[in-house]
């Protein structure tokens, strides 16, 4: 082989080598790091309804300067001096209050009636009811010597009776603090009336329907919301 021939054969081999090197198939495999998705945030928890603040229970029994005020009626059987069972809780609370109010030495339980019906019967019924309340308190370990009970019939009305609602206001039981006596000039505690009615009330219509008897004491008509003076002993 001449020198030029040798040269061209070498060039050809080089070209073939290059072409061969460029061809073929390469197989490979791989993977990528895990792709972490972000799920949507869960829906916000429903906003809890605002905490319902329980209304402060109206205190059924309160001690004021001159009264043990009860913001609920003591219920009696009709025309009787029998306290209805539904008032037992209230009587319990009154007894508890009286036992805790150690500064109170003497309380008069007053029964009051409306002017409807026979005044004498009303007087007796109101007196019986006052005594029934006293007995129920004594049965709950309230010292008997701290209590007196008296019925006033309709002589100490809270309001003039033009309607049945007025009469209902006048039917009541009051707890008047006799000892310690309120200081002179101390304002009498108005009877609260949370439901629009009189509070310390027996709540039972008087017996009979005869005209009311003339009161034995001078008839006074205190304004609504004021308290009658303590009866003279």
């Amino acid at each position: 082989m001449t020198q030029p021939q040798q040269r061209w054969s070498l060039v050809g081999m080089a070209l073939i080598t290059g072409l061969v090197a460029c061809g073929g198939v390469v197989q490979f495999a791989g993977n990528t790091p895990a792709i972490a998705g972000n799920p949507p945030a869960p829906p916000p928890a429903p906003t809890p309804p605002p905490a319902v603040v329980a209304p402060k229970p109206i205190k059924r029994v309160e001690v004021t300067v001159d009264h043990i005020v009860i913001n609920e009626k003591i219920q009696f059987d009709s025309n009787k001096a029998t306290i209805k069972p539904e008032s037992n809780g209230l009587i319990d609370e009154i007894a508890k209050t009286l036992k805790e109010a150690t500064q109170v030495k003497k309380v008069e339980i007053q029964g009051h009636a409306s002017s409807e019906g026979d005044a004498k019967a009303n007087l007796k019924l109101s007196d019986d009811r006052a005594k029934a309340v006293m007995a129920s308190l004594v049965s709950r370990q309230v010292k008997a010597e701290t209590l007196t009970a008296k019925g006033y019939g309709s002589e100490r009305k809270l309001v003039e009776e033009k309607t049945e609602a007025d009469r209902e206001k006048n039917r009541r039981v009051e707890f008047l603090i006799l000892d310690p006596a309120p200081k002179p000039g101390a304002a009498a505690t108005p009877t609260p009336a949370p439901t629009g009615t009189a509070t310390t009330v027996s709540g039972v219509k008087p017996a009979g329907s005869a005209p009311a008897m003339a009161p034995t004491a001078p008839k006074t008509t205190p304004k609504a919301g004021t308290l009658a003076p303590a009866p003279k002993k």
Partner: protein
Amino acid sequence: MNKSLILGSALALLSVASLSGCALRDTQMFHDDTAKLFDAKQGDMKACYDGILKTTPTAAGKVTVNFKWEPGTGKLLETAVDKANTTAPEPVQQCVTHALDGLVINPPDKKEGQGTWTFEFAAGTPKA
């Protein structure tokens, strides 16, 4: 002697010239270059996957694709999901195929690269 030297130099230059028009990747090089390209597409895949999670929070699994790098052009061709080795639901598979669509390996290789690649998708913890 002088002629032989000239001839050797010429041959060497010729060999280099003949090789300069194409890349010559081995398996590892194909893997590495492919990984770089695919990694760059992870953002697109994640965005697509997040979208799927909005409606299908449990969507997850593996997607295995087979493909080829076209010799000479470097284009990604014949991308196909390997169903036998895929566990992710169809929408997630589409996230992969769409993200890879149009990729080109550069420089192109004179050899055909036949690849199998697996992408794994996992639903993370939802942000509070």
